[in-house]
């Protein structure tokens, strides 16, 4: 490493608390010019807080920041910008109604009163050519794809003379191909002497693209190492510690699945199994497959898995036939989607976020009108049915936004569990709520799904995200649904809660429910699902059986490439 060079940036003993929560505790971080430095950790490990301190959004409670050999106080984002520290946030800070050039020049130090558009656009073109950041300076930001918007954010930082660039989960919104080109750009910037800090939770990407890795856990630095010395085991230990997690369901012998299933390498765990990527962490296990090596295990197991599935899955009960729908702006969001799901099957929907996933789930739940085509559940046409009829037909809906769409945060635990069944005799008689029954059911759910609540009479908005999601699942699966549609159900949850949620979905599918599982994480889809459909720009690019496909193929389909069915 470039240890002989002085670090451009040092954070020493940084501590930050929010109320009783310690977000950062005694954190040391050194960043050198010319390197890509990855900050790795779970959600809530303190990565974003640390970077928000560095960019002046939060003030640390203790500790020092040294920049280019001097101790600095960063009071505001303005101070950080003046020093040359800039950040690309996960949610872009762009103004959709302004052009690319205007967005960049909001951030430049130039103070001329009138706007000189020609000059602005020329400067941006030069910058984008130097670092291979293709984007049209005169385009309005609302016209750009997510990848292009990210490039605008990077150009913004370069234009204001940033020496230290921080990117918060930059690959989360990109296809695998786009992500690689983004990292190539970051490498170019590092080579030109800038320091790049990348916040991530993807180990594989970090090991491949970073020079050094710092692992945060519970607000502390757990480990820091050159990328060349990093391996999955060491990083996993840093990220999750020595926690033990429930076993991966697919390898568990269950009555329906004969024991040999557990012996066979499952497709998401190829030859490198020697490394023992813990099976309970599909994320890492999946990353072991690098795009160049398609899963070798897949071919061997596919036959066996097919056999199993015939046992597990029943008849096809849910059909979509050429279904189209519009988004909130009235533009086509789903284009002639056709698919069928069998009882007991977990059907994955892969794709970059914002390609019709939300609209698809809302169509299935009956919330969004179908403009064309038919939706059938067990032979019954639901394309014109009301939301209530969908609920009565046994469709459970786990929306993307669990707290606002799934639950009412201001209502209590007991009130939230009856939101969909308040009219039943169990919960209301002559219009009077049956508090006793509500309470006993709430207690039963809390026990059965291990929901930690501060009290059944407290607003659910006060519960943690994982427990809110468990509560939502408890309500939705309590009536033994025939179809469950879950959109990003484990997003933002810690590993333990995420695994419980996946467990609930697997259990429901074993009981015979058809599950539509919408996720951004290919690793998760490969670990959970029987088949996967890929959405791109509202179209279903194709459907593949897990075990007969690989990341590379799905990644290509996510970026819009259509391929013949094998």
């Amino acid at each position: 490493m470039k240890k002989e060079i002085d670090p451009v940036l040092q954070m020493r003993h940084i501590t930050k608390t929010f109320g009783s929560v310690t977000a950062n505790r005694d954190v040391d971080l050194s960043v050198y010019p010319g390197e890509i430095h990855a900050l790795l950790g779970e959600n809530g490990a303190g990565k974003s807080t640390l970077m928000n301190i560095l960019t002046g959004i939060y003030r640390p409670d203790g500790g020092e920041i040294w920049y280019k050999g001097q101790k600095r106080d960063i009071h505001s984002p303005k101070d950080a910008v003046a020093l040359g520290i800039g950040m690309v946030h996960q949610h872009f800070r762009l103004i959709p109604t302004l052009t690319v050039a205007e967005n960049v020049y909001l951030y430049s130090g130039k103070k001329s009163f009138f706007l000189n558009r020609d000059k602005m656009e020329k400067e941006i073109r030069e910058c984008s050519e130097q670092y291979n950041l293709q984007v049209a300076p005169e385009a309005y930001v609302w016209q750009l794809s997510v990848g292009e918007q990210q490039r605008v954010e990077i150009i913004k930082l370069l234009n204001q003379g940033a020496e230290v660039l921080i990117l918060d989960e930059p690959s989360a919104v990109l296809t695998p191909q786009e992500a690689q080109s983004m990292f190539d750009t970051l490498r170019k910037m590092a080579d030109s002497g800038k320091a790049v800090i990348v916040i991530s939770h993807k180990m594989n990407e970090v090991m491949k693209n970073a020079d050094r890795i710092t692992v945060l856990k519970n607000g502390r630095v757990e480990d820091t190492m050159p990328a060349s010395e990093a391996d999955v085991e060491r990083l996993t230990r840093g990220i999750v510690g020595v926690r033990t997690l429930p076993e991966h369901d697919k390898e568990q012998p269950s009555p329906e699945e004969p024991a040999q299933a557990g012996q066979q390498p499952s497709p998401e765990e190829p030859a490198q199994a020697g490394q023992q990527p813990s099976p309970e962490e599909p994320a890492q296990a999946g990353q072991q497959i690098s795009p160049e090596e398609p899963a070798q295990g897949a071919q061997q197991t596919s036959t066996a898995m097919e056999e199993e599935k015939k046992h597990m899955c029943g008849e096809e009960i849910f059909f979509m036939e050429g279904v189209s729908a519009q988004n909130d702006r009235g533009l086509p969001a789903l284009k002639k989607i056709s698919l069928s799901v069998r009882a007991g099957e977990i059907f994955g929907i892969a794709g970059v976020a914002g390609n019709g996933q939300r609209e698809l789930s809302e169509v299935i739940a009956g919330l969004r009108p179908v403009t064309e085509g038919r939706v059938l559940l067990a032979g019954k046409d639901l394309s014109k049915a009301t939301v209530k009829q969908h609920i009565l037909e046994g469709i459970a809906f786990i929306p993307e936004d669990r707290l606002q769409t799934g639950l009412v945060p201001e209502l209590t635990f007991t009130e939230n569990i009856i939101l969909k069944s308040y009219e039943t005799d169990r919960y209301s008689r002559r219009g009077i709520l049956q508090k006793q029954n509500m309470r006993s059911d709430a207690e039963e759910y809390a026990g059965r799904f291990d929901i930690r609540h501060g009290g059944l009479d407290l607003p659910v908005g006060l519960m943690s995200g994982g427990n809110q999601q468990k509560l939502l699942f408890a309500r939705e699966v309590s009536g033994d649904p025939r179809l469950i549609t879950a959109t990003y159900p484990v997003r933002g949850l810690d590993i333990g809660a995420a695994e419980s949620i996946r467990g609930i979905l697997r259990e429901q599918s074993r009981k015979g429910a058809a599950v539509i599982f919408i996720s951004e994480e290919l690793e998760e889809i490969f670990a959970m699902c029987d088949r996967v459909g890929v959405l791109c720009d509202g179209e279903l690019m194709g459907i593949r059986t897990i075990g007969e496909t690989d990341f590379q193929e799905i990644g290509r389909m996510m970026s819009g490439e259509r391929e013949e069915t094998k």
Partner: protein
Amino acid sequence: MSTTLLISIISTAVVYAATVLYAAVGEIFSQRAGIMNLGLEGIMLMGAVSGYMVAVYRQNLVLAMLVVILVGAALGLVFSFLTVTMQADQTVSGMAMLTFGTGLSGFLGKGVSGVNANLAFEPIAIPGLSRIPILGPSLFNQNILVYLIYVIIPLSMIYLYKTRPGMILRALGENPAALDSAGYNVFALRYAYVTFGSIMTAVSGAVVSLAYTNFWSDGMTSGKGWIAVALVVFSAWNPLTATFGALLFGAISIIGIDVQTVFPQVPSQVFSALPYVATIIALIFTTGNFRGRRSAAPAALTIPYDREKR
């Protein structure tokens, strides 16, 4: 239609437009900054009464306008404090400004209610221009407050779309967090634009009391503040479009009075209600949630900016 009638219609429509345009332009700037002030009517009344009182007691129009500007600035600072610093609900705060302004103006104006100031902004004919047929006497034989709005509209357009501060203003109501991270002081900018909007609104009131109706009575702006709010939405937050809208409302209100003489059997209230009916219809067609239409409203309008909540 006789030429004199045509001149009278255009000329009255122009003065009517001026009475609402100051407020509308001010509110466009305020809402572009992300703060919706629904208390325009109250601020207009305060501007109208304070200007008229100075005119009655001091017989000085320059002093009257200075007082109007100060009153507008004071009310603007109060509203900014409520909505920017205290992050109060903007609808409720707007209603507070409305009732406060209506009540206080009525109280303060008791002494001048019905009193003739014998002082108003008189029309000044611009040499040369005022001799253009029809347009000359209707557009260029106006008072100075109307001439000023002729200048303010193009200046506000240039400011919004051709200057750097205007670009920042357009961003301010869309994504204040982005501006904050760029080092701009979101709070100071919002204070400035809300206060500017309030000053313009108070001036609008003074146009009513000192250049349009030339008297004071309780509640005499009769809903012009609301028409200004409607114009802001109708114009999609664009001062030039707002001007056309204001002229249209002005024409409707004056034509109503003329048509009244043709149909004496129809109650006069029907015709005086026309501008308000037109407002409702215009609002339905411009802001209704029709399929495929994207609202031009600033994305962060009515959302208080809170650094800790990002």
